[in-house]
């Protein structure tokens, strides 16, 4: 890292909230703006928007290809997936999906994409290279959350109105278990070593942590924030650090991100961020967490070590998804 950059970053953070943040490396964050049909690109070192491009309609879930060269985006109202070059931001191609694709996850092999189509009770399996739908997997009503086990053997999909986590064998594309969770499950995510599966329930107001091996509940996390109505605490996005020690849960209209010790499942801190925080992403070095705040049209940057929000960055309208590339 260049010294000048380091100083700039520290100065910016200091200007924003009056303390020195851990300097971040120069990664690139891609943020989909649901209302604006655009993609905001942020330099995570400068913590500045470097570019905004117009993309398809109602962009939501976003992932990177395994080599980091492609940005893959659910453009929900176009009922299709759009692929952009991560460097040049040029449109590359589209991939098929079912109606209203919302969230997607990439198989560790980098070849297969699993897409939750909110509008037809199906998870669509897409071969990226061939640009073809390989299979459709029937799940519950309004599929949304998509979690992939680190070994790529198990896909977990959540269905918002059925209130289940569906365990899918990625070899056979069949569900082999279906577990009821609290109301309106939004996100499913495994930790890096595959020993925990986290499922957030937006309306239920809880996060359930399962042992993926036997699919038994390890624990359920409840949230309480003084001065915030219980109903406003609506867990959506979940991210876990690579060492598996800390988890972050975005609490929607409570405008907070909960930081949780994954061993005790206790909330250590609630960090105030922008309004209606839904999705999040950690920088590859796990030093910063970026959150999309739909109702305030910005991204909050949380310094993971300091457990503080250090900056908010203006985006397009209703920022939804976020992904960060190591380049």
């Amino acid at each position, binding site marked *: 890292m260049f010294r000048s950059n380091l100083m700039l970053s520290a100065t910016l953070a200091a200007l924003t909230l009056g303390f020195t943040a851990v300097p971040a490396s120069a990664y690139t964050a891609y943020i989909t703006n649901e209302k604006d049909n655009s993609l905001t690109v942020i330099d995570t070192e400068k913590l500045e928007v470097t570019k905004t491009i117009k993309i398809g309609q109602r962009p939501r879930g976003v992932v990177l290809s395994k080599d980091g060269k492609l940005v893959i985006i659910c453009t929900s109202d176009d009922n299709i997936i759009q692929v952009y070059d991560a460097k040049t931001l040029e449109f590359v191609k589209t991939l098929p999906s079912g109606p*209203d694709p919302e969230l997607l996850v990439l198989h560790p092999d980098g070849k297969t994409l699993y897409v939750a189509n909110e509008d037809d009770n199906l998870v669509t399996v897409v071969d990226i290279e061939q640009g073809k739908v390989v299979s459709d997997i029937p799940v519950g009503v*309004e599929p949304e959350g998509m979690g992939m086990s680190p070994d790529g053997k198990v896909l977990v999909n959540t269905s*918002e109105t059925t209130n289940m986590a569906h365990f899918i064998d990625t070899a056979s594309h069949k569900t*082999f278990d279906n577990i009821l969770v609290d109301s309106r499950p939004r996100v499913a995510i495994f930790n890096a070593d595959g020993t925990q599966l986290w499922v957030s329930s937006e309306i239920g107001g809880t996060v359930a942590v399962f042992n993926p091996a036997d699919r*038994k509940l390890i624990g359920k996390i409840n949230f309480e924030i003084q001065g915030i109505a219980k109903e406003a605490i609506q867990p959506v996005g979940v991210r876990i650090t690579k060492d598996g020690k800390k988890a972050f849960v975005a609490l929607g209209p409570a405008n907070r991100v909960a930081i949780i010790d994954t061993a005790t499942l206790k909330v250590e801190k609630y960090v105030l961020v922008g309004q209606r925080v839904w999705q999040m992403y950690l920088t590859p070095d796990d030093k910063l967490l970026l959150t999309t705040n739909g109702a305030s049209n910005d991204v909050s940057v949380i310094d993971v070590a300091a457990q503080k929000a250090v900056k908010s960055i203006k985006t397009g309208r209703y920022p939804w998804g976020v992904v960060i590339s190591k380049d």
Partner: protein
Amino acid sequence: MTVSFGQYFQGAATARRSFQRGAMLAAIVISAGALALHPAAAQDKPAAPDASAAAPAAKDALTYSILYVRQTREKPAPLSLLDLPSADDGIAGAKLAISDNNTTGKFLNQSFKLDVIEGADAADLSRQALEKITAGTGYIIADMEPDSLLKFSDALAGKPALIANVGSADDSLREENCRANVLHVAPTRTMLADALGQYLSWKQWRNWFLVSGSQPDDKAFAEALRRAAKRFGSKIVEEREFKYQSGSRRSDGGFEQIQQQIPQFTQNAKDHDVVVVADESGQFGDYMPYRTWTARPVAGTSGLTATSWHPALELWGGTQFQNRFRRLTNRLMTPLDYDAWLAVRVIGEAASRKQTTDFKTLSAFIHAPEFEVAAFKGVKTTFRNWNGQLRQPLIVTTPKLLVSISPQPGFLHQFTELDTLGIDKPETKCKAYAQ
């Protein structure tokens, strides 16, 4: 000041042109077609990760029969063609929920089916319902007049049957006339008036000119509006009754006279911010907007209204829900469809959480304080345990688009802000619910 409405119609017919809601007689039965694909779904019985081993010998599916009872009643035709109800208004919402429940049910080895009975006579409807209860149906969705619903629920008292009211906003059904075997999914008049009242108060439109019709329903809603004004710091500065004899709905022309009549009717009212209308049967309220003497917005049963659902609502994942309904019916979802959907989802939710068909277990669970259903309202919907009324956010809307959601920010409550809408626990007159 009163104006007789009928005299302004050309060739005013003396008899009301009646519009009979639907003539759908064929019972709709959603077959238990969605049979279990994955019978092993219980949380305490994890199946092997190997998908081929995931289908142990199929047990008989748990079947849940739901009965939709619709009382046909003579209603005056609405002023606007846009407001003509569909033949399956309400029933279509129940059908969508059956389909949603069955999608979930296929993972739990549960299937849901719907029967529909219709008729004008409450005694006849209860006879038919009792036969269904004997045959194993425990859940009834009722779209009925308040008096008939009372007779119906009393005829079913003591039977293993739970009734969900989707057809009446009448507060007395939840208060002095509450019944232990009835839950209320439809919002009450006081909830609707409070939802609107909070918004008008937020807007600082605190001086209301109340125009009410002369039917008992109109008077009941006018009373709910008076109550709302008092609760949220507004004032009714002027009140007038709109007396009318509704003539034929259609007549070639008519606007010429209405254009003259409404300004005249609203002339010389005390200074007000908003005209609030109580016209539940929809006989004159829609004539108010753009025709009042002074330029004032209209709210109440016309103009800005409060409702449990709106066909253009897309908040909180509502888009997919609206799409599913449109695919099923090829039309838009009405508040009655939504209430019926929610009533059937209540059964589905209880069934998936308890995984039994035992009526007592399910009924007790639905009545428990922790029971909740996600219903595209941004927060969980729950039942008030003192009178069985569903608590939910309400939509404040123009005919085409959402304006706001009530409760409004700042209207606080000791337990839940949702209880700032409608009659609250300390005021309840309901005795049938254990408190």
